[in-house]
């Protein structure tokens, strides 16, 4: 056992610089949300077990018939769109839940900040590992329940708890009238718990706990309004598609264990250079299976299909889980396993290609979606593609950087969309309309009604589009720039991907990235134009009911808006003379340094600063062009009414998302079900049962013969006896 031995030796030699600081409390980080989960879950259970007078579920036994029971389901969140609902009632324990839910995450954020302060002071170069107990001890497999604190995990912890706390606050207002309020916060707290376990776990199995745990919470939250079949389907789809990815993760773990005999990060890092052949098939296979896991969790081709459907969940959930945190876990995994990927250039290139194709592919779909959340969903897939481009090209810092800025502006976009949907829903609710509150064709001109949301959404749009000085500009620019650099000189350039030289592949990826960035600017501007500008299409009756959201919702938006605006200064490039350059890169260097160095080997030593500037200008120009094109093409024309003549040709293909869902359904799901039913169950089982029955028949037939011999006449028996005796005598007496 390398890892514990090394650890013990290290501990014995000298205490880790972080011990004795706030980092000693790292175990408490996930416990806050866990405690929140337990409290909220208990409240939810108590509320349903003993319905009080103010509880909307109190009348559940008096539902007179199925129709009424069906309508009165617990699905009356702002997104569910049902106007005939009874007047919303606050949950019986709403006040307690409102306090416990956000507070649990807020406390975790405070602790994370304290740990950050300690870590910023100490600058440890080795990870700080805390071991609690033996989780799975079996022979030479020793998986401990242990947390690892280093710059990477702490960065993620800060994002999760920080953005998470803001989204929890937003949810207090957004979900306030939902009958499942306590259940909602229980799930949300549980999610934060698992997410923290994911990033803090000191070994792959512990990470896997969080990995599947967040999948579970995602499942529960997507299907939160489970009474609608589509929502339940979406949750199930998310879980199963993620399971396909988890299959890859598991296989990768098995291979790692068979090869290296250990599964914790420190052990793998120590053993990988000696135990695996760099560039060899084994490490490549390991990385490809890890990548399969990432593709599932981070919604990359071919496993991206669950994320658009996941928009069925409440909008804050989409912001937290399906934009800011969980879906980026794949990026985290690649960065965490950076050394392995650096040892497998072919796998790294696969990561980058997958990211680039996904980024471009999802961006094209985003162009033609009408549901505001669907646009954001495809945008998320596309941005995740950018992150994978980055980490695939060995730009680990850029990947994490984009992860952080994306968490800011995409959470803002989702929450802003949530604010819009909230207003639309309230308006339609008040007028008993059955229109779709999420369809952009029903919006327009909301600028006047919701000015705060409008401004903040524009900040986020500029950030995601990559307009200079906003957060997304720096991160996206760094990704594209690094890819260009790697194409110029790195071990990736010298490797081959499906026979194509790595350099060519990287240049192609760079080009695809530029196109995707352009499309991003287009579809985001389209979203803004249709939602906030032009004529209002909500309807005469509903229009007066459109209001800006309460401060509890706009407050978190403001904070995120500020972060989206200035978040880019976390890691400004060296050639731009703004503030301290490359802060994040220096911060993350102890973790990602070795892998980056390995992958960048062979690069020309001195990068020309003018080239970096030129690349930045190109990126900025692309973003600006995208916005201009969108404004020119769509600025004056109002979109078609909902339900009007469908698009044709390529537009129809885009609007139907390339028919991928249909293809999966017809090509995999249905044949599998039919095969299981007809061939396996009715066929094979029927055959086996038939054989068994046949065997039984044969013996019944033999039994019939025996039965016929039983005449019941003593004379016959006497004869049989004598004959039998004669036979025995003939045999025995010689």
């Amino acid at each position, binding site marked *: 056992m390398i890892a514990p031995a090394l650890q013990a030796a290290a501990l014995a030699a000298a205490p880790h610089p972080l011990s004795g600081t706030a980092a000693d409390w790292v175990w408490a980080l996930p416990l806050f949300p866990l405690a929140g989960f337990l409290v909220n879950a208990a409240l939810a259970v108590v509320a349903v077990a003993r319905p009080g007078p103010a509880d909307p579920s109190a009348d559940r036994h008096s539902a007179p018939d199925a129709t009424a029971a069906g309508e009165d389901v617990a699905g009356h969140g702002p997104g569910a769109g049902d106007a005939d609902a009874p007047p919303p009632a606050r949950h019986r324990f709403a006040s307690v839940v409102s306090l416990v839910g956000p507070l649990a995450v807020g406390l975790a954020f405070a602790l994370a900040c304290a740990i950050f302060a300690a870590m910023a002071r100490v600058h440890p170069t080795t990870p700080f590992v805390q071991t609690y107990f033996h989780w799975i001890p079996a022979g030479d497999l020793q998986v401990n329940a242990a947390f690892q604190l280093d710059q990477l995990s702490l960065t993620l912890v800060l994002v999760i708890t920080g953005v998470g706390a803001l989204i929890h606050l937003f949810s207090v207002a957004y979900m306030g009238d939902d009958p499942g309020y306590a259940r909602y916060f229980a799930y949300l707290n549980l999610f934060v718990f698992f997410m923290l376990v994911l990033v803090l776990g000191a070994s792959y199995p512990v990470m896997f706990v969080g990995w599947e745990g967040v999948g579970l919470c995602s499942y529960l939250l997507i299907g939160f309004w489970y009474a609608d079949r589509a929502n339940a389907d979406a949750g199930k789809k998310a879980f199963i598609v993620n399971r396909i990815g988890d299959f890859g993760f598991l296989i990768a773990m098995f291979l790692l264990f068979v090869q290296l005999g250990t599964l914790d990060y420190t052990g793998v890092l120590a053993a990988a250079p000696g135990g695996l052949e760099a560039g060899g098939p084994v490490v490549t296979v390991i990385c490809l299976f890890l990548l399969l896991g990432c593709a599932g969790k981070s919604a990359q081709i071919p496993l991206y299909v669950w994320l658009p459907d996941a928009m069925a969940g409440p909008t804050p959930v989409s912001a937290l889980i399906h934009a800011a945190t969980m879906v980026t876990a794949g990026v985290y995994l690649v960065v965490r396993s950076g050394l392995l990927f650096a040892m497998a250039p072919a796998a790294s290139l696969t990561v980058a290609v997958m990211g680039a194709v996904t980024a471009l592919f999802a961006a094209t779909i985003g162009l033609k979606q009408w549901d505001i959340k669907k646009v954001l969903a495809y945008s998320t897939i596309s941005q995740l593609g950018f992150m994978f481009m980055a980490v695939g090209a060995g730009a680990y810092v850029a990947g994490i950087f984009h992860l952080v800025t994306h968490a800011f502006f995409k959470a803002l976009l989702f929450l802003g969309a949530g604010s819009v949907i909230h207003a639309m829903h309230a308006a339609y609710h008040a007028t008993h309309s059955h229109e779709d509150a999420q369809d952009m064709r029903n919006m327009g001109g909301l600028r006047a009604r919701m000015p705060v949301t409008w401004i903040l959404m524009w900040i986020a749009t500029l950030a995601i589009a990559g307009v200079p000085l906003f957060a997304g500009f720096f991160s996206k620019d760094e990704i594209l720039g690094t890819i260009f650099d790697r194409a110029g000189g790195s071990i990736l350039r010298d490797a081959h991907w499906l026979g194509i030289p790595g350099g060519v592949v990287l240049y192609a990826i760079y080009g695809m990235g530029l196109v995707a960035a352009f499309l991003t600017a287009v579809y985001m501007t389209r979203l803004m134009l249709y939602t906030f500008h032009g004529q209002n299409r909500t309807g005469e009756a509903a229009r007066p009911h459109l209001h800006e959201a309460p401060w509890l919702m706009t407050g978190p938006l403001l904070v995120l808006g500020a972060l989206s605006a200035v978040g880019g200064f976390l890691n400004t490039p060296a050639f731009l003379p703004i503030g301290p350059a490359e802060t994040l890169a220096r911060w993350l260097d102890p973790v990602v340094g070795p892998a980056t160095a390995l992958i960048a080997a062979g690069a020309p030593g001195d990068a020309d600063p003018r080239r970096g500037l030129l690349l930045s200008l190109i990126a900025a120009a692309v973003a600006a062009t995208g916005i201009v094109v969108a404004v020119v093409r769509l600025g004056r024309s109002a979109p078609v009414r909902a339900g009007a003549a469908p698009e044709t040709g390529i537009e129809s293909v885009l609007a139907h998302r390339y028919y991928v869902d249909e293809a999966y359904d017809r090509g995999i799901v249905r044949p599998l079900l039919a095969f299981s039913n007809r061939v396996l169950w009715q066929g094979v089982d029927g055959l086996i049962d038939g054989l068994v029955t046949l065997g039984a028949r044969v013996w019944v037939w033999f039994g019939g013969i025996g*039965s016929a011999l*039983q*005449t*019941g*006449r*003593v*004379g016959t028996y*006497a004869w049989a006896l*004598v004959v039998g005796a004669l036979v025995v005598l003939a045999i025995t007496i010689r």
Partner: protein
Amino acid sequence: MLAESIALSALLFVIGVVGVLTRRNAIIVFMCVELMLNAVNLTFIAFGRVYGYGAQAIVIFVMTVAAAEAAVGLAIVIAIFRHRQTVDLDSINLLKG
């Protein structure tokens, strides 16, 4: 006298067997069985002269079993006769499978 005894025993036994096979009256069949048992007893006694008194003890057992069999068997015959008014074995096939 051993060989003669055994020959006699065999002969009596076979006569009993033939009786069982040729008669239909349940009571006579029973008596034939008794004859066969007695034939066997004779064998035991004859061999007892050669091997000792254990054989005679066995004969006691055989007789006891024969007595028990006669008691139960005749009771059954009586019961059947009450029921069917016959002791003809060919007309009794309650045990037909």
